[in-house]
């Protein structure tokens, strides 16, 4: 079990209203990612769920039980911190065993659970080491191990991969997703990295200034963003926003078109642009173009396309993939 419900939860630090009011339903077994720019309140929201911060108003329910005033340990949640927060003077074994020891479990039971967790996480050979003798990825796994052994009703991850290098981040992303499929436990994951959000989540919660902008599956958010913020935040490279005559011709204040939905040609098209920067990634090339009467446009094309700085390129937006927004920034549905 591990469903979490937030009812009109708000958080105020002094004068600053970090979270005005949030309603959210997290179902049992779901992998939910809170994503948003830094300072959007996503970590605060996670800490509210964990009980490390008190809510200013509203209620938090876990498995239908009101835990708004419960201490962190009583909520049955486990958290993996950004800095891992391992206990530096304890061995890996004692780190993982710590929550069980605090729960006053039998020594034999503790040993078995630690051994099981270590096997799942490939830590068996490192059990007697200190955290300082481990690499970043191994520390991360110890932190996860410490969370797993408690058999919590939900895991909370606070930007767990941000201290790892790019290659290791990719590996750990897979490992965490794999773990979720094995354990089938609810996971709430905070990140500012939309790639992590898109690849791992069952459900993404996009936050901005303490408000939920949109909740949905990764592809829902990609295909039909509810407003300009979500449209600009989800997807890499970012969606192009075009105002002016082109948008008016589509009956919208702003028209949005993703870089991958632009048809490129070297001799004909609606827009004519000059390549300022071409980023060749191998399979793909990202072109940053100056388009007369439209502005800056980013386009994604095949690696074989062959455009370089100073070249002239013609573009045609794919009308079926066009996003239209009204003057309040909300999406217009056809």
């Amino acid at each position, binding site marked *: 079990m591990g469903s979490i419900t937030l009812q009109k939860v708000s958080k105020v630090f002094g004068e600053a209203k970090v979270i005005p009011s949030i309603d959210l339903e997290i179902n049992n077994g779901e992998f939910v990612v809170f994503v948003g720019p830094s300072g959007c309140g996503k970590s605060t929201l996670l800490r509210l769920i964990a009980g*490390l911060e008190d809510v200013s108003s509203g209620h938090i329910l876990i498995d239908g039980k009101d835990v708004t005033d419960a201490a962190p340990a009583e909520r049955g949640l486990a958290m993996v911190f950004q800095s891992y927060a*391992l*206990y530096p003077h304890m061995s890996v074994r004692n780190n993982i065993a710590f929550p069980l020891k605090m729960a006053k479990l039998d020594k034999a039971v503790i040993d078995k659970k630690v051994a099981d967790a270590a096997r799942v996480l490939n830590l068996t050979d490192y059990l007697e080491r200190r955290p300082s003798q481990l690499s970043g990825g191994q520390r991360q796994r110890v932190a996860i191990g410490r969370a797993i052994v408690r058999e919590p009703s939900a895991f909370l991850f606070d930007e767990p991969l941000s201290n790892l290098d790019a290659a290791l981040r990719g590996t750990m992303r897979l490992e965490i997703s794999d773990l979720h499929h094995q354990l089938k436990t609810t996971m709430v994951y905070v990140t500012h990295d939309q790639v992590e959000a898109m690849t791992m989540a069952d459900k993404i919660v996009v936050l901005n200034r303490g408000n939920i902008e949109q909740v949905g599956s990764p592809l829902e958010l990609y295909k039909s963003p509810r407003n300009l913020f979500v449209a600009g935040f989800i997807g890499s490279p970012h969606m192009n926003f075009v105002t002016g005559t082109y948008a008016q011709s589509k009956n919208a204040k702003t028209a949005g078109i993703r870089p991958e939905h632009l048809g490129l040609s070297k001799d004909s098209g609606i827009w004519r642009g000059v390549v300022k920067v071409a980023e060749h990634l191998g399979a793909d090339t990202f072109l940053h173009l100056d388009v007369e009467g439209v502005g800056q446009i980013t386009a994604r094309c095949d690696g074989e396309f062959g455009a370089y700085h100073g070249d002239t390129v013609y573009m045609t937006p794919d009308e079926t993939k066009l996003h239209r927004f009204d003057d309040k920034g909300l999406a217009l549905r056809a």
Partner: protein
Amino acid sequence: MATQNTKTLARLMMAPSVLLLLIWMIVPLAMTLWFSFQNYNLLDPSNVSFTGLFNYQFFYTDPAFFQSIWNTLVIVGGVLLITVIGGIAIALLLDQPIFGQGIVRILIISPFFVMPPVAALVWKNMIMNPSYGVFADISKFFGLRPIDWFAQYPLFSIVIIVAWQWLPFATLILLTALQSLDGEQKEAAEMDGANFLNRFIYLVVPHLARSITVVILIQTIFLLGVYAEILVTTNGGPGYASTNLAFLIYRTALLGYDVGGASAGGIIAVVLANIVAFFLMRAVGKNLDR
């Protein structure tokens, strides 16, 4: 940094200071050692002669000798106990966010700035005095007989005064260590179900181990030679009840005018300090290399 060139240069640059420190230490030690084998009394300064180990025998057979060593160790141990435990307690309190934090911290630290004879005089005349001291007033308020501290508990009184002086030092060092404890570790322990006591035992104390070691080592160096507080308050008495080794050496040298005997005492003090240092380093020194 580690090329041959820089190594040679570094040694060359360090040489003057090392040489100076060596002379600073070796010359007085050698002179003390030299005098300790001489029959040298200031009442009869023209008659100086070699006496072999007589001064050591004289000092060793002094009835105050073993008591003074014991008193030295009691002062060191007692003050360390009070300052380390009290220091941790006060540091934990000061680490909490409170109103007027800055002023409270300055007040807590201020005893460290009071020089030892002044502190001892304040305690002697204003706090522990049996007729008009603060403790006497408190006793009278409860209808009890005032305690004559320096007559009834001379050594304990010295320990209290010296501990009062060193408590700020311990508090300051331990407070900075406490502030460097990672907040996420505390939160992780909280989520792991550790209550305050468990967090203290498993998280705070191991984190403080190194600072506690520093406090113990530095304080021991100074506490072995406590002198001013004894001179100002009890003058070593009653009898030899509050005489420590440093004070005994002072008595031999400046009240007995016996330079040779005092030098022998000084060498014994050096040996004692080294024994203490040896056991101390074995007991807590491993906390330093991590």
